[in-house]
């Protein structure tokens, strides 16, 4: 059996769905951030798979940029989370209810 584009795409779709469902189901904001990272990784996988298939480097460039963007996103997310945790002692999404009226 040859591992081809379809397999990569299926794997990426599975990882993406795991991330998406996790984001929706889980209430721990830290885990929600991780789920977003999973989704980004799935997109990276698609880029690399297509890049190989097409023999084109643009996909690789995209993936490198995504690394940096994802890191920046996590850094800002964790910094905000830390600020909230200091005051709230909780990172549960359901506790983020100060704004609900």
């Amino acid at each position, binding site marked *: 059996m040859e591992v081809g584009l379809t397999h990569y795409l299926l794997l990426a779709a599975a990882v993406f769905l795991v991330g998406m469902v996790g*984001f929706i189901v889980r209430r721990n*904001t830290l885990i929600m951030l991780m789920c*977003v990272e999973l989704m980004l990784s799935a997109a990276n996988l698609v880029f690399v798979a297509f890049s190989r298939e*097409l023999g084109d480097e643009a996909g690789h460039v*995209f993936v490198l940029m995504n690394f940096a963007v994802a890191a920046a996103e996590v850094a800002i*997310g964790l910094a905000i989370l830390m600020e909230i945790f200091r005051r709230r002692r909780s990172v549960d999404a359901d506790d*983020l209810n100060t704004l609900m009226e």
Partner: protein
Amino acid sequence: MITVPPVNWPALLPYLVIGGGGLVVMLVDAFVRTLRKDHLTALTGLVFLGAAIAMIAVKPEPGPQLGGMLTVQMYTRFFDFLLLGIGLVTTVYGSAVYSQDGDYRPEFYPLVLFAVLGMMVLVAASDLLILFLGIETMSLAVYALVCGRRGELRSSEAALKYLLLGSFASAFLLMGAALLYGCAGGTSYAALAAVGGTGEGGPLFAVGLGLVLVGFAFKVAMVPFHMWTPDVYDGAPAHVTGFMATAVKAAAFGALIRFVTIALPGLAAHWSGLLTVLTVLTMTAGNLLALVQASIKRMLAYSSIAHAGYLLLGVLAILAPAGGDPGRPLRESAVVQAAGSGLLFYLLGYCLMNLAAFGVISQLGRSGGVEADQVDHYRGLSGRQPVAAAVLAVAMFSLAGIPGTVGFLGKFYLFEAAIRAQLVPLAIWGVVNSLLSVYYYLRVVVVMYMSDDQTEPFDGRNWETILLAGCLAALVVLLGVFPAAVHGLTSLAFGTMLG
């Protein structure tokens, strides 16, 4: 073997000025300890002015830059000026708020600069990579801006919510971009147009397109991807909310309009049904929910959703096949031209009136850790602060679309274009919606002018902010009475994008 694309420095100068300026502001903040507090404001203002002067003084040859990554043309320059203006106004509002509070936040200034840089790049993007980087540069800076008050739970929570949902949306956008890349064999808009223009990209292309549009829908707060808007607008400090309501929305729409017209002229055949439903939902849900808000910031959040609906109507008018003939090419149509210039005019007016409103809100100061948020806080404002009340009233009239203001004309141009594109039921629904919206906008005016002056604790007053908001309100009226010159300009700008 690498090849270096020709670099057209004059065309890139504004971006370099803003980006470099942001770094300089950071370094000055880090190294100059004996800084007077308004030095950073002045420096940031100078950077914005410098970029504007660079755009006026240096007239580059319009066209694609850096091997087709960005396109600089009159359309992008129109947005650049708009975004620079919003950045400048936000800087002034912000520094006024921080000096009122005695809470000095130096990181505010570089963040605004970087956000504006991301927005300018976003609008100019001609490649999915630059589109993504622009959106992220803008969003990351804005996430941090929302968290603009140290130790205040409300703004931290708003920031976390915005970040979580925003990055969720970015993941969709990225996945969509990956699929489009695979189907089109490249990431440039031109490559997408070659495949998408014919409407025969296959199912994977359609899925990719849908995911990218979901990403956009989050950024412009389109129903059903609007859930973050009220909480984030409410939790962020008012001057940041103003920035988000205007600059983020303008940039996202600027990029969306470019994306759909350049990359996907064949879009209408596949997506117009779904887009129509979303447009109707966005208008209606925004207006209905705005009716029941007691908080003025939440009301303006829902109102911004409703306005996104009106703008989507314009986008639909661009996409609608001219004269019911799907085979007719997009760029020959006068309807497209009318819808496009209407959109730009509307965006300009929308930014002016919202900035004026948020300026007044932000300068009222804080009491007990919250801003003047409830509509009740504005009871009798006309007695205490007649100028501020008048400015807010003008903004509300314009948002409601009362004739004589820019809000009316913007809606007029948009609905007229929609009717010419044979979207008559949608245009009528838009008019009904904007009549509905009159109620909640005018409620604020009524409360300000017709109720007794209760001594409210919000007695902040900042003349710089009021003056600036007053100028914006004057522009709202001026453009509402003499629109011809500016409307000609937006028409010309949109024309350059069609090429």
